[in-house]
């Protein structure tokens, strides 16, 4: 077990290094031209551009540029030159909204997809199953930015039930926080419910044919007990590991579209706004940190998996 964990952590570090190099190359090197000029923005003075060039070492060899860029980001010394904010501070400021979105939506989509997936599996081939299949297909086909706009229009503008987007701090007003988050949670969840419930349905259908399930039936357990204690418990493992990775993506700003439509001012929206302004440093920091969170969490998930299932350690 320890050997597996060490091996997995080593590969995690390697992927992180490669990811950081890739991110640097994609965002700083590929566009070509003078990176100092690009970071400084259109209205920068010559002195400012020179200052950026020294700070990031753009007049030095490429590996020094890379090291300086990483150092600036991880020590909180990276600034958005066009907007004049500290990138790490701005990301921290966006985290509460992003975490609210991730945790609330994550809980909702996990519970809902367990319910939907189990129902579809129990009724496999029947009318309910077909209906849920079509609904799941519709769910995975709805882009969050469209679904969000539709919900905002009908439930907020027309019916006036929900607020018109924005984020209210939990500490300011828990009820307002909740009320502002309902539509974003729903919007983000629909896609995942569609996907997870399909995965769970087919995992359950695979599990049902296992010998231990027949044994459980044979020893006289009720259908319900077999389902909950034996089938569901084993079928949930792939769902939970997917969930860990998807949550990591959302926390890192992967829910860009939902955050943008509902104007939550989270990490994802910061990334979206940086795109529009072609503000490279915040974008670089967000992409890098997100990828790190995802890589780290996927290592944790793998190690946890190996702990649960000894067969994985040996392969």
């Amino acid at each position, binding site marked *: 077990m320890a050997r597996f964990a060490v091996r997995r952590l080593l590969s995690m570090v390697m992927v992180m290094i490669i990811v950081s190099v890739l991110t640097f190359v994609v965002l700083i090197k*590929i566009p070509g031209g003078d990176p100092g000029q690009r970071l400084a923005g259109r209205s920068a003075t010559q002195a400012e551009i020179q200052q950026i060039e020294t700070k990031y070492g753009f007049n030095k060899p490429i590996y020094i540029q890379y090291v300086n860029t990483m150092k600036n980001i991880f020590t909180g010394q990276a600034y958005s030159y066009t907007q004049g904010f500290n990138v790490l501070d701005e990301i921290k400021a966006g985290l509460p909204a992003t975490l609210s979105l991730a945790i609330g939506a994550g809980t909702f989509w996990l519970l809902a997809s367990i319910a939907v997936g189990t129902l579809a599996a129990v009724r496999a081939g029947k009318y309910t199953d077909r209906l849920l299949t079509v609904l799941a297909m519709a769910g995975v*086909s709805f882009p969050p930015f469209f679904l969000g706009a539709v919900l905002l229009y009908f439930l907020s503008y027309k019916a006036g039930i929900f607020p018109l987007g924005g984020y209210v701090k939990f500490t300011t007003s828990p009820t307002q926080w909740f009320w502002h988050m309902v539509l974003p949670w729903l919007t983000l969840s629909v896609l995942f419910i569609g996907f997870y419930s399909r995965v769970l349905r087919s995992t359950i259908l695979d599990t049902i044919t296992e010998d231990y399930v027949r044994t459980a039936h044979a020893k006289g357990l009720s259908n319900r007990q077999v389902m909950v204690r034996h089938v569901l418990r084993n079928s949930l493992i792939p769902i939970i590991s997917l969930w860990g990775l998807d949550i990591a993506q959302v926390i890192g700003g992967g829910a860009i579209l939902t955050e943008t439509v509902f104007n939550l001012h989270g990490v994802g929206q910061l990334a979206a706004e940086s795109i529009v302004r072609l503000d490279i440093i915040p974008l670089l920091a967000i992409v890098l940190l997100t990828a790190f969170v995802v890589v780290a969490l996927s290592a944790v998930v793998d190690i946890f998996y190996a702990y649960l299932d000894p067969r994985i350690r040996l392969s």
Partner: protein
Amino acid sequence: MATTSAPGTEFSADLGAAVAAEGEDLPPGIGPWKLAWRRLRRNKTALFFGGVFLVIVALSVLAPVYSHDIAHIGYADQNIDKPILIAGKKTYVLDPTGIPIGPTWHSQYLLGADSDGRDVAVRLLYGGRNSLEVGIIATTITMVLALILGVWAGFFRGAADATIGVILDSIWAYPAVLLGIALGATLAISGINLGIFKIEGTSLYVPAVVVGIVYIPYVAKPIRGQVLTLREREFVDAARQQGLSNFRIMFSEILPNVASTIVVFVPLILANAILLEAALSFLGAGIKPPNASWGTMISDGVNTIPAAFHNVLVPGIMLVLTVMSINIFGDGLRDALDPRSKVRIAH
């Protein structure tokens, strides 16, 4: 985006067994492709949505005809100050406060105007053309590169597998939309320049290449897993004994056995590629104006909420309908080709 990788990457192409398990009454010696076609033909829902998709493709291909002969207006033509004749009445497409008119249900401005006074129906069809074109090119890029990388890694294992694995893991580490906008934003500045192969930054091919790269691991990993088991099978040993070269074995022994996986993945990737292109365009890192795209149309429309909601609704419904029809058809195709498969993909 995530695929189920852990328990789900090894899937059997064991069609015969699956069919036998179903207890179908089949003529002897029927081939796997013919069998799949029989199953697909019985799935009316999948066929219906496959048809819907074909209709959308046909309409999009005919966009210039519609623009030229029916609507008499180009996709980028604005009509701000001149009134048009609709059912004999002079109408301005933008009212004095700049709010565009809704659907007229006549040949001109059939589905209303956008906030720049352009014809939404014309832009919808051109947007479909662009979205489908980007989706199809991106899917081709993904499938070809994923196939090469997956087969190579699975067949040679060892160092090649480790190297390719790290590349795939690195791409996988980024959330799809985030990687897409990072690439889309920078490539739009520089264009793509690989010597003989040059693409302008504003070209349609930039989002196509971006989307194509993002989805490579989702296909390459399952293919690699399948090749890993295939290479140990007896028929590969037999080919090796006959002295076939590695390349021949990969091409004529391995490839036909992963063909059904590839076919199953095409609609999945196409649907996701169209969605990702729309998302990138929505965020301003995809198709560039004045080219139309469903994503940019929705993005423009969101700015006119609540006055002209048709600007969001029309492209949005079209996008959902397209993606849903590909998804449902793809689901049927998967059931037909590989009834016990574990090939899955989503966001």
